[in-house]
């Protein structure tokens, strides 16, 4: 007779799970025992946060659901950052946590944590299983909910006695009767499509603003067709990178706080902005009351709650991006955007992304070279901060699964474990984790995980020995008063790599950039760390100060002290 634990593993098999990322402990031992009898590969991580980011990276690189297995108490609470990260960026992961036995729940038993309660705000849905016979249904629901509609993380908390008990039920054929409250729109109504086409036809200066939702729905191809048919420029969000080739003439790159100057100028001057799977994040709109005030707004998103959350669109298209765009494209005609595109081309020429060519080693130079040497085709994961923004600016993407970053949550320590997950998911693909020296140290022990499996991930540390983005803000807005940003005491990252059995390389001079990056590309016997010791006080520009209007973009460092940002963080 199968136990609850056996059924959980059987559910993984049915969902075609290849890898489970996790770390065991007392309460989850029955499930870790059952997995031994399956063909699913267990990836032992060094920390549960690492496991969640790996599952997330795996999910974003493959479109499949990432799976995590952890124990109760601190094992489970260590997943909270990973759950938040996945939740904010709509990544499908399922976390199975062990739990104290049911008679002990609520009695402060050893390693008991109310993880169900703790995680409510950071999951798409969650379960605390109290009857073993619910497991088949719960597991099927968990995978379905995580991966459908707007994807997200699902937590399944399983007390040890439940996992050990015998299960007498089978997997339900159909979930409809079990999930009467769960539905997600697919195709919107035709009236909205016609209204959208009318707005497009009335526009002289359109802009397509493409986000993560376009990638998730597999709409990249139809986005390109639509842009080319309309001859409309396209900007992508940080998470939308890859949903439209940045080498295409219609691309203006990333918009927002550290977007390209020409993308933001396009935003300011457009007369129509169409969001496709994007959510008008505060990093994009800046001061909301001054955002695109004269432009018509179209919002396409599968999540009804996103419509009207930040801005009231003139037309709402509620549903799946791919389905809706495939319909819409049949109802639109080419626009006369020649003059508009010419203006944008002028901005591109006048305000290109640039960096000082003289002086010490520049992060931008390293990332520019990385983009070039990898043909813009590597999978790139990042943490959050300066390196992330420089990488977003200079690494030119074109594949809809290659760019994996912590956007909404802005999680330090995401990049390297996410690269591990992505490499498991796409073993033949070159994978680069571009991280800061600060964030890298938050999940650094996962190098051991990567080394164990001889994964050829490459970790590029943009090392300025500072928490750089905070330092930049302190320089610009807090009168150069540096508080808590100096990372003195950093380890020697090359020696560190070697101690993990990884390759360690270092870039100190601009002249060495291409040679050493190429060395890393050519090394495939395991993880390779490249410690790029960049200018300590480099800044990310362009920049829209938090809370300022998009038109308040700064293209280079101002001579005067700026007022402290208001209205946003």
């Amino acid at each position: 007779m199968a136990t609850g634990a056996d059924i959980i593993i059987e559910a993984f098999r049915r969902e075609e799970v290849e890898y489970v990322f996790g770390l065991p402990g007392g309460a989850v031992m029955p499930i870790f025992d059952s997995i031994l009898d399956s063909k699913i590969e267990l990836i032992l991580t060094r920390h549960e946060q690492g496991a969640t980011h790996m599952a997330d990276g795996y999910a974003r690189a493959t479109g499949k659901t990432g799976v995590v297995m952890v124990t109760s108490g601190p094992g489970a609470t260590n997943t909270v950052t990973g759950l938040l990260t996945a939740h904010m960026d709509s990544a499908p992961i399922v976390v199975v946590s062990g739990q104290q036995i049911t008679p002990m729940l609520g009695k402060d038993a050893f390693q008991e944590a109310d993880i169900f309660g703790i995680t409510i705000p950071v999951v798409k849905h969650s379960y605390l299983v109290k009857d073993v016979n619910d497991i088949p249904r719960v597991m099927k629901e968990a995978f379905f909910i995580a991966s459908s509609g707007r994807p997200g993380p699902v937590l399944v908390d399983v007390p040890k006695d439940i996992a050990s008990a015998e299960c007498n039920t089978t997997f339900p054929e159909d979930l409809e009767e079990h999930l009467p409250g769960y539905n997600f729109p697919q195709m919107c109504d035709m009236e909205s499509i016609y209204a959208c086409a009318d707005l497009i036809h009335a526009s002289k200066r359109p802009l397509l603003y493409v986000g993560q939702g376009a990638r998730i729905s597999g709409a990249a191809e139809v986005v390109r067709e639509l842009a080319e048919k309309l001859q409309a420029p396209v900007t992508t969000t940080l998470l939308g990178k890859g949903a439209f080739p940045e080498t295409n003439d219609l691309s203006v790159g990333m918009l927002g706080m550290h977007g390209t100057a020409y993308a933001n100028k396009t935003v300011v001057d457009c007369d129509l902005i169409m969001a496709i799977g994007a959510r008008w994040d505060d990093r994009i709109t800046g001061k909301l009351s001054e955002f695109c005030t004269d432009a018509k707004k179209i919002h396409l998103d599968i999540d009804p709650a996103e419509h009207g959350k930040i801005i009231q669109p003139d037309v709402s298209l509620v549903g799946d991006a791919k389905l809706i765009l495939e319909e819409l494209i049949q109802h639109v005609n080419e626009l006369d955007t020649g003059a508009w595109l010419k203006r944008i081309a002028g901005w591109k020429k006048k305000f290109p992304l640039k960096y000082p060519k003289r002086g010490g080693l520049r992060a931008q130079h390293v990332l520019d070279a990385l983009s070039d040497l990898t043909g813009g085709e590597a999978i790139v994961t990042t943490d959050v901060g300066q390196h992330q923004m420089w990488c977003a600016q200079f690494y030119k993407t074109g594949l809809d699964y290659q760019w994996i970053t912590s956007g909404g949550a802005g999680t330090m320590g995401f990049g390297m474990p996410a690269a591990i997950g992505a490499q498991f998911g796409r073993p033949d693909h070159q994978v680069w984790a571009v991280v800061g020296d600060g964030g890298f140290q938050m999940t650094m022990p996962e190098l051991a995980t990567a080394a164990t499996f001889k994964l050829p991930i490459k970790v590029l540390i943009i090392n300025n020995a500072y928490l750089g983005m905070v330092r930049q803000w302190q320089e610009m807005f807090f009168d150069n008063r540096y508080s808590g940003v100096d990372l003195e005491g950093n380890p020697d990252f090359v020696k560190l790599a070697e101690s993990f059995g990884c390759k360690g390389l270092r870039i100190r001079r601009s002249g060495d950039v291409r040679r050493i990056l190429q060395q890393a590309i050519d090394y495939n016997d395991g993880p390779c760390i490249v410690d790029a010791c960049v200018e300590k006080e480099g800044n990310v520009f362009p920049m829209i100060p938090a809370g300022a209007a998009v038109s308040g973009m700064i293209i280079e460092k101002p001579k005067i002290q700026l007022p402290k940002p208001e209205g946003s963080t």
Partner: protein
Amino acid sequence: MSTDGKHTISMRVHDRPGVLSRIAQVFARRGFNIDSLVVSAGHQPGFSRMTISCEGDPAQLEQIVKQLEKLVDTVHATEHTSESTVEREMALVKVTATPENRSEILQIAECFRGKAVDITEESMVVEVTGNSEKIDAFERLLETFGIIERVRSGKVVIARGTGIT
């Protein structure tokens, strides 16, 4: 939509552990105060009915209803205006009552179609049902006698006609 910041939302939800926590968090995070919350078994087994009276920025209300709808356990969430619904609330009011003023209190109760459900030498408990404003008025009248304590059920609403609540 009410413009004074007071709203009534009714929900049909799957009767699953944690559903109340999830709903409460949607309100708390967005600065809405829940005035009353009535939960009862739905007429279909496995489902519950909730009526939530709350107070907060009307501009946020649409977002709150959408976030409630988004919960996997929510079958539906609807915001109601008083025109389209019948609303009722019940109160039990315990007042200081002596043999001398008992009949006066009973007279007032009668005007409100209330009735005494407990009487002692010094007190009386009166039950009254109606919309919330009626109960407020009833309470104000009883205050002159001295209210010892009172309990209100919180508002329940149902759509008029064949409409679905």
